[in-house]
């Protein structure tokens, strides 16, 4: 069997492969191409999913179960979803496929010099399957997964997230065939993030394309992404590369790893850390630099998730965890800033007549 059909290191993924590795993994591969630091990992491709479904005789079985289902009946859809998900999660990953996933995982552990490297397992949707990553909800992301057995289990649970009631209803509404649905799974080294958050390559509140806006909190980025805290906010001028604004907020909660259980927990921030700046000035500038490079690589404004890691023995590092095109400002219709005029005097006259608003 050709291994690269079923598992693919992020380094080999790019945007032309969205159908095979999904948007998330494709974009991580793209970032690596631009020499952006991304935590290492690999994609379990849609073909692996197809193979699994076939080998377990689930293709027809699922098709039959969904036939004639009235998606507007919530309870009925709920029941179908539960059954299908249970079949998938109870299915068996065949030995050759299991070996390929396990080999990739061991390779990753060797690379990070961490036995049973903790990983994040996330679904990586192909374009038409799901409206966006956030649609599927939280159940398709599993953090702190360690060891091959758990990895295989979480992979199946990711696959099964294709059949949540919302996903089923959405496809029905959009007229997509359930049988055409494909899902890739991304397996990525867990970053023990010290601080994390999101950043935009333009200012999302003013639209200024020269400003990188960074939102940051302690621990994992989830608290920022989900809007559970008022994060610290930093502005970096892209051209002069200086920090033009710092707002340090009262950060009440954060997500971190319980050292006993290796589970992600949501806890209150210690009183003395709540008002501290969650990023060093040098880190703010490094993030600004990365935002600039990512934007240049894609040629459009981007919305980026990032994390800093301070675990020994390595020194502190910054990682980009995800990036996707910014949508709000990029979709706005562009009018010329000023109506074109023959000369500067004409602009001055027009400006004078309009005046300056005072209140």
């Amino acid at each position, binding site marked *: 069997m050709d291994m690269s059909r079923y598992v693919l290191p992020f380094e080999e993924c790019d945007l032309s492969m969205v159908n095979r590795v999904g948007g998330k993994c494709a974009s991580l591969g793209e970032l690596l191409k631009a020499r952006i630091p991304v935590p290492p990992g690999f994609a379990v491709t849609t073909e692996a999913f197809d193979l699994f479904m076939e080998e377990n005789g689930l293709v027809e079985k699922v098709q039959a179960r969904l036939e004639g289902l009235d998606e507007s009946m919530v309870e009925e859809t709920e029941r179908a979803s539960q059954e299908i998900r249970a079949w998938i999660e109870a299915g068996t990953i065949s030995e050759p496929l299991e070996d390929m996933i396990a080999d990739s995982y061991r390779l990753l552990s060797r690379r990070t010099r961490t036995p049973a490297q903790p990983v994040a397992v996330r679904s990586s949707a192909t374009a038409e399957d799901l409206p966006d990553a956030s649609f599927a909800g939280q159940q398709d992301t599993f953090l702190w997964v360690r060891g091959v057995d758990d990895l295989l289990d979480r992979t199946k649970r990711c696959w099964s997230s294709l059949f949540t009631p919302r996903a089923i209803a959405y496809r029905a509404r959009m007229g997509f065939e359930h049988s055409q649905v494909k899902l890739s799974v991304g397996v990525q080294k867990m970053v023990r993030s010290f601080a994390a958050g999101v950043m935009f390559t333009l*200012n999302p509140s*003013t*639209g*200024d*394309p*020269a*400003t990188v806006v960074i939102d940051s909190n302690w621990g994992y980025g989830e608290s920022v992404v989900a809007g559970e805290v008022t994060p610290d906010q930093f*502005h970096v*001028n*892209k*051209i*002069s590369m*200086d*920090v*033009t*604004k*710092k707002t340090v907020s009262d950060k009440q909660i954060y997500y971190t790893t319980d050292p006993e259980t290796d589970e992600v927990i949501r806890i209150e921030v210690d009183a003395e850390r709540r008002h501290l700046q969650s990023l060093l*000035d040098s880190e703010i500038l490094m993030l600004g630099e990365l935002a600039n490079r990512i934007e240049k690589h894609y040629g459009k404004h981007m919305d980026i998730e990032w994390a800093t890691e301070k675990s020994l023995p390595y020194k502190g590092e910054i990682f980009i965890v995800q990036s996707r095109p910014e949508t709000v400002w990029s979709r706005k219709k*562009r009018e*010329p*800033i*000023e109506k*074109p*005029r023959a*000369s*500067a*005097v*004409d*602009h*001055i*006259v027009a*400006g*004078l*007549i309009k*005046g*300056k*608003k*005072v*209140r």
Partner: protein
Amino acid sequence: MADLKFPSPHEAERIPGTEGWERMYPYHYLYTTEDPERKKYEESMFWFYDGLHYPEPMYPFDIIWDEAWFLALSQFNNRIFIVPPARGIDHRIHNGYIYITPVPVTDPEEIGKRAEFFTKRAGFYYENWDKLHDNWEAKMKEVINKLAMLEIPVPPEMEDDAVVMDGIGVSTGYHLLKAYDELISLGILAWQYHFEFLNLGYAAYVFFVDFCRKAFPDIPLQKITQMVGGIDVIIYQPDQELKKLARLSIDLGVDEIAMNGNAETVLAAMEGSDNGKKWLEAWDKAREPWFHVSTGTGWYHHDRSWNDDLDIPVSAMRIYIEKLRKGENIARPTEKVIKERDHLTEGYRNLLQSDEDKATFDQMLATARTVFPYVENHLFYVEHWFHSLFWNKMREVAAIFVEHKFINDVEDVWFLTRQEIKDALWDLVTAWATGSNGRGPLVWPKEIEWRKGVMQKFREWTPPDAMGQVPETITEPFTIVLWGVTSESMSQWAKLKAVAEGDLSKIVGFPGSPGDVEGIVRVCRTVQEINQLQEGEILVAPTTSPSWAPAFQRIKAAVTDVGGVMCHAAIVCREYGLPAVVGTGSATSRLKTGQKVRVNGASGEIDILS
């Protein structure tokens, strides 16, 4: 901004014990309730305190420059270039503080008509800027030359034989009156020229700013000024001369002489050797005109020039000699400045989305760059060179008053208005001619003592930021640029107030030059104190001027009480890459030498750490 409320001009606070202060100033500067129409007009306008030019209350004589620009700016706007939506700027005074208001044109039809004239007239100036500007420089030098040559004659006990032998037919008394008139008239003329270009310059600049802000809503003003800022601006020249003199003293081996004693002993010692004489030659050459640079803004009579106090350039030059001896580079980082300016311009331009936007950007930038050198350079010609000479000519007039006991001290003359001085001169020359006693000695010393007391009470009073009604829009370019009277600055005022009343560990001002540093405060109230600055300290000053330039070689950041993004401290700090927070209003009174602070030049905040 609707909640911004200011007192009515007619209900502004009066200070007990100053009753009658109104006679110290021109009668038309006073708010009045006597005429219903004028009262209504005054109530309806937005009068804001011109703290940028007048951090102190006005001396009765020094108000001459306010009158001069009241006329000059307004006529160029309203009668010469015909700015479409704005007439002139009206002025008032209250408790010694100047309040001004732009007068708008409200009728759209009139605005349209005015626009035709403005396009033609201002367009002519923009197109022929460089040629007209050369012409301006020639005119300005002529005025300065006339002023320098103007003789203030001292009435003698008896006129010279020549008056008779040459059949001159007039007396020194007549000449003194005439010379005084000429002196005042030259001052007014210099200010006519001052505004010939200035408002056009500001207009071009302000709409480039406007464009940049629309395209880049977060862009700091300092980045825009960096894009248009000139490289060879003459405000740097006095400082350049000191550097040259420092280098020359080392090259000639006379630097040790330069390092010892005061200016008088240095200059005397230089006479002792051939190399010393060579250095003196260069020194004398630098003095004309560069040492006419004022140690203040030049707006007040007490802003003395380097030529008035040679100890200042001598001690400033020593900072450079020390640096050169240590092998440090004291040259202006012009290459770096040019590189940064180009990088910034290209970076912003590349972020523009369309070719239309790029074309507009290019048009506005080119014009802004054409006008900007004037905006920066006129200060040296008028406020420094001309004013420094002017104040001293007035001191010659004052000396005659002292001799005739009209006033006790030369420096008392500033407590009289220019009209009172004219009247007093008549009193003096007629008494001199007649051989009788003038009335002046009975009137002025007493009046001046009273006025000194009034001025002191004015100083202790805090003028409100503004009076009257806040308008919807401001269209007068000068108002927008110089005072930044926009919704932004209004909320900044509100912020400054809130901070002043609440958080004692913070001082807020205008972001003058970006950067973020911690350091030890050194409060320098005058340029004479810059010698106390230690390497790496943070300079805290009321304001700075070109004569403060050497200070910027030693410091890590600058903080001023007065000034906007275009003030001297902000310009120089941007050049040297030092953070600056300007226009804090109160830094010199709230900070003490030795305190530790953190200065954020991008946000305009100063945190007091100890």
